[in-house]
């Protein structure tokens, strides 16, 4: 008989631990996780002073030992003239991450594994920022795996909280480092000065214990006070903690408590609570909405109390209010900036403040009175209140300091509290404590929100940095890039290292036996040309057409072969996947790929040979596709046309060469393709695009023009659509689970209710929305012979009712859901712009694998990885669009500066105290409030049924929806903020 026993003499027993912990999964199941832990003694301290560790440091699989990171002579302070290594605990990083990232100090930092793990649980963005720091060469940030090292591993004692255990682990590591370095230096032959190990913590208890154990330790603010420019640095420490200490606990709670997480989860599962993303209306900062799956319409969240400290973008849990409290969405414009203009930011302690200011209360009450006065048995929407926040979506915000909130001229560097007014109107004012209020006035400032406590009406934040003076091009552009989270830093060296080392001299290899030619078709003889906007440098696509002997045509779309240069998973690919897209601003382009590729090696420039990925079709005269094929190729573009040049060439009867004939064929076929698409129900939602003309030298805006659309624009568009559709089908066929596709969901019917009703009452048109075809047809009928712009206006408004298109991984949806509503295509992807969109690059790789040109990288086989890619590029894509639009808006504003122009516009929205006018020529939309019409402010009665605002009192007039008006456009500088704004004044109703 034998019995099961552990082998007796296991030399490693003391080094192996079992970590047991319980975790709950997303769906609320509880899992018990047992994990082994192997403790070891060969983890180096990574100090260049330490010879002992250098001797034992193990290498990776290639035997490469990583260089040691911590410097021999680290910087010191007055208290530590011998220099120090910093060891922050989790709180120090949570409160002072911005400090660690700036360059005037905070070098030679040891990040403990314990801290990193804790940080990852507390805040993923902060964790990622720390990881970013460890990768920088000049910051000397080292991750020490203290939980894997035998001497520094700490076992949690019975009754000890996890936080206390972690704090103890930090202190243990600090003391180990000190002894280890001292020992190591004592044994070395030429003893050098041993740097101090300084623990940074904002936890009083932890600091006290550290002192008791004779360790060097201090709080962030104490440490920073000893540095140069301490004032600026002190502003960068998270504010919430300091305030909490200074404020009495007796302070009144302005906002209701949040429910506990388990309570919320139970509520959600039971269906009594709902989870969704909190969005704030751009017209009314007191009105938010949350879309939840259980309700068709969004839930309205009215007023501060109900939104309960949620900030636009947060994932919140809401409770639906009783039906008696349901309301119609607001018909009133309420802007925080104008309403609560002269609030004092300092009134924090003492008497406390009300959640709702007197002005706000009045505004809301008027609203209620008015809506109830109307017989709107009309469309009340369910309302709800926020009971908890699942996940904050706080980021860094750009704004300016409200000058009225700062006690101007205050002498010295006294700390005062000021308001920051964010650029994004949906974000509430942020309370900021600063010692440099005077310098920050009139500047674009970057801040973060730290906390929003129950006893504070506004969130609390801290200063990150100043971008420069308001309205300077540099500051405004950077502000815009930050607001839309565009990655605009220059490409790091690691990325540039991935470029071909020949640089601009790279050429398609001359010899057909070269490996670059393997699997490529030689299409250099084809008469290929490209057609793009004027001055386009990153030419993604080129086309050709030639007649076939059987009377059909061969059509080719040739796309830059970016995937040849950007291999999966290298640094350049990683960077491109994070950037997701190239961002086009009026005066600037922020590339997804380095210039060398984008504007040269990949770009299908004329007269040179380039690698391409070609889609070839045989097409009949009637634009029926006989077959399609895909191949990697080499092409030589004959000419790079602008849309105008191409149009002229096609129209010029005297041109009879083959290239021009080919273009005519393309144009002829594109018109037929377009007809077919339209017949199938594709939507034409083109809104007027505005182009800002700039002076080439200074890029100062000179004029604003609406973009003209030529036949050649749609020529290119049609064939790109065709290529995208063909490729989508091919990659889906080869990878049914993991093809990267693009879909456009049909809009829910309720989205069009408002517009349909407006059209019905004002113009008697009926809008049919049961299919895209019906919608397209009924949009075509919405014309007003006296107002050519009316149809465009309706199309713009209809576009806003649509869902946005999105990238997805084919395995996550069923086939009918693939449909692209706007293009009326069953399946669609992006393939034709790999230089400027990451999605296209992925599609290229998948297509290359589908035609067995190369093997597919494993990461593109994995559904979860692709979903992650999609999630990111969807966000980037949207942000890029918004950044582009904001940039145009800014430049239109600059172009109008100092000018007064009268223009025609149309009323596109009517409120009870104002209306919105759209001016097509500049593509701007502006608000005209009752107060702008005359002083004293006239009375307005709003007929919500008829969409009419009747103004009486000091002026008498009526404004109704879709009405054509003449407005005077000027720009005004707001006194309080120094900010320039476009102002519209009504001249002729």
């Amino acid at each position, binding site marked *: *008989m*034998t019995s*099961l026993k*552990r*082998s007796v003499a*296991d030399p*490693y027993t003391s080094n*192996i631990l*079992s970590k047991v912990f319980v975790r709950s999964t997303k769906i609320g*199941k509880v*899992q*018990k*996780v*047992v*994990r*082994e*832990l*192997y*403790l*070891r003694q060969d*983890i*180096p301290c*990574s100090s260049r002073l330490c010879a002992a560790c250098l001797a034992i*440091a*193990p290498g*990776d*699989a*290639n035997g490469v030992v*990583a*260089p040691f*990171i911590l410097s021999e002579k680290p910087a010191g302070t007055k208290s530590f003239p011998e220099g120090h290594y910093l060891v922050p605990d989790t709180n120090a990083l949570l409160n002072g991450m911005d400090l660690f990232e700036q360059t005037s100090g905070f070098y030679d930092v040891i990040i403990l594994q314990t801290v990193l793990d804790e940080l990852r649980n507390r805040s993923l963005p902060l964790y*990622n920022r720390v*990881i970013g720091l*460890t990768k920088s060469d000049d910051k000397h940030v*080292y*991750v*020490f*795996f203290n*939980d*894997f090292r035998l001497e520094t591993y700490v076992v949690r004692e019975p009754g000890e909280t996890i936080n206390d255990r972690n704090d103890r682990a930090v202190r243990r590591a600090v003391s180990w480092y000190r002894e280890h370095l001292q020992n190591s230096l004592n044994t070395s032959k030429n003893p050098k000065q041993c740097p101090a190990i300084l623990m940074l913590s904002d936890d009083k208890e932890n600091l006290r214990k550290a002192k008791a154990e004779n360790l060097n330790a201090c709080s962030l603010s104490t440490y920073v006070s000893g540095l140069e420019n301490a004032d600026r640095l002190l502003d960068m420490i998270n504010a919430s903690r300091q305030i909490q200490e200074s404020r009495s606990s007796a302070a009144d709670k302005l906002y209701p408590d949040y429910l506990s997480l388990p309570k919320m989860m139970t509520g959600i599962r039971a269906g009594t609570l709902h989870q969704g993303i909190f969005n704030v209306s751009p017209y009314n900062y007191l009105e938010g909405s949350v879309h939840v799956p259980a309700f068709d319409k969004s839930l309205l969240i009215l007023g501060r109390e109900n939104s309960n400290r949620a900030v636009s973008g947060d994932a919140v849990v809401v409770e639906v209010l009783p039906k008696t409290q349901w309301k119609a969405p607001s018909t009133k414009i309420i802007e925080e900036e104008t309403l609560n203009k002269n609030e004092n930011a300092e009134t924090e302690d003492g008497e406390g403040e009300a959640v709702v200011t007197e002005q706000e209360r009045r505004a809301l009450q008027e609203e209620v009175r008015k809506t109830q006065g109307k017989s709107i048995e009309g469309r009340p929407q369910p309302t709800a209140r926020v009971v908890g926040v699942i996940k904050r979506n706080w980021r860094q915000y750009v704004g300016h300091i409200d000058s009225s909130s700062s006690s101007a001229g205050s002498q010295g560097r006294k700390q005062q509290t000021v308001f920051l007014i964010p650029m994004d109107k949906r974000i509430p004012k942020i309370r900021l404590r600063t010692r440099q209020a005077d310098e920050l006035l009139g500047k674009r400032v970057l801040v973060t929100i730290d906390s929003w406590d129950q006893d504070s009406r506004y969130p609390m934040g801290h200063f990150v940095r100043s971008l420069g003076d308001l309205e300077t091009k540099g500051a405004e552009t950077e502000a815009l890039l930050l607001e839309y989270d565009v990655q605009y830093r220059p490409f790091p060296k*690691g990325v540039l*290292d*991935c470029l071909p080392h020949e640089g601009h001299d790279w050429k398609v290899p001359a010899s057909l036996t070269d490996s670059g030619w393997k699997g490529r078709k030689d299409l250099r003889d084809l008469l290929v040309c490209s057609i793009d906007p004027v001055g386009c440098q990153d030419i993604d696509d080129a086309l050709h057409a030639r007649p076939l002997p059987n009377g059909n045509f061969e059509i080719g779309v040739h796309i830059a072969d970016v995937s040849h240069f950007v*291999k*999966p*998973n*290298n*640094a350049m*690919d*990683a960077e491109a*996947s*994070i950037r997701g897209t190239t961002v086009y601003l009026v005066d600037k382009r922020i590339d997804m790929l380095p210039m060398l590729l984008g504007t040269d090696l990949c770009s299908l420039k004329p007269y040179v040979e380039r690698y391409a990925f070609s889609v070839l079709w045989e097409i009949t005269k009637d634009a029926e596709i006989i077959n399609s094929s895909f191949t990697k190729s080499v092409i030589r573009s004959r000419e790079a046309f602008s849309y105008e040049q191409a149009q002229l060439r096609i129209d010029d009867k005297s041109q009879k060469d083959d290239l021009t004939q080919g273009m005519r064929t393309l144009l002829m076929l594109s018109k037929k393709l377009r007809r077919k698409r339209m017949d199938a129900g594709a939507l034409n939602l083109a809104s007027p695009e505005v182009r800002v003309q700039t002076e080439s030298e200074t890029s100062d805006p000179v004029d604003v023009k609406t973009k003209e659309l030529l036949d050649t624009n749609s020529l290119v568009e049609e064939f790109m659509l065709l290529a995208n559709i063909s490729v989508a089908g091919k990659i889906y066929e080869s990878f049914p689970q993991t093809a990267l596709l693009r879909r456009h969901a049909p809009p829910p019917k309720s989205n069009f209710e408002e517009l349909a009703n407006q059209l019905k009452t004002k113009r008697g048109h009926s809008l049919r929305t049961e299919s895209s075809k019906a919608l397209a047809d009924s949009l075509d009928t919405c014309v007003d012979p006296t107002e050519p712009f009316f149809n465009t206006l309706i199309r713009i408004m209809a576009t806003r009712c649509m869902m946005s298109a999105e990238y997805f991984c084919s395995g996550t949806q069923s086939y009918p859901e693939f449909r692209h509503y706007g293009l009326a295509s069953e399946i669609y992807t992006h393939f034709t712009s790999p230089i400027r969109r990451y999605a296209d690059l992925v599609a290229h790789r998948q297509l290359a694998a589908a035609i067995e040109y190369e093997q597919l990288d*494993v*990461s593109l*086989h*994995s559904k979860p*990885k692709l979903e*992650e*890619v999609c999630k*990111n590029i969807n966000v980037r894509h949207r942000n890029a669009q918004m950044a582009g639009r904001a940039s145009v808006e800014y430049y239109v504003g600059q172009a109008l500066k100092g000018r007064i122009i009268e223009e025609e516009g149309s009323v596109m929205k009517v409120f009870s105290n104002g209306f919105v006018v759209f001016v097509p020529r500049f593509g701007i939309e502006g608000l005209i409030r009752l107060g702008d019409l005359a002083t004293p402010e006239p009375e307005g009665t709003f007929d919500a049924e008829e969409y009419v605002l009747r103004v009486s009192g000091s002026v008498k007039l009526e404004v109704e929806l879709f009405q054509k008006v003449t407005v005077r456009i000027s720009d005004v500088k707001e006194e309080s903020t120094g900010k320039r704004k476009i102002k519209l004044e009504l001249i002729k109703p």
Partner: protein
Amino acid sequence: MPLPPSIYHLSSSHLRLDGRRWNELRRLTAQISTQASADGSSYLEMGNTKVLCTVTGPSEGKGGGRRGDEDSMSVDVRVNVAGFAGMDRKRVGRGDRRITELQNTISSAFSSTLFTHLYPHSTISLQIHILSLDGSLLAASLNAATLALIDAGVPMRDYLVACTAGLTPPSGRGDGDDMDPLLDLNGSEETEVPFLTVGTGGAGGGDVGGGGGWV
């Protein structure tokens, strides 16, 4: 985004989630003759993967309804995963595709290693019980089975020994030079890293089967 910043590349030390380096195996302990009633038996731990294996036979007749070559012995493998083996307490059914695949792989591996021609018209059956599951299931099963077969005294060409090997995700710093090979993957690593199970006999050696891919 290619991958969340993986712990492998956080630091120059290239440590794995459980503190091992790339070429280190987990603690391996094994015993034979643990079940007196069986013809051969073994118990094997590779870290937290714990496997019990018993051998019955070779015995006359074709058991288990498996068809085989009449001239040689067939190898019948049953794998049973205990309900408490994984993180979720759930039953893994016999019909589970992965279990069937596992059984077939083990069966074919031993069909070519054992001297099956010595036992015509007979069957040897291996019962493999997975008591605890933390990655490298195929490798642990093969190792345990080899031990149990040795215990049963079944003649074989060589000992069949197996281990998993994977490749860490690239950090994005270079062109894949910094991808580390990994040995003996545990459960959480298997979900993150493509891997392969390699089995080898002392004399010949070779790839037994790929239980790999992105799980």
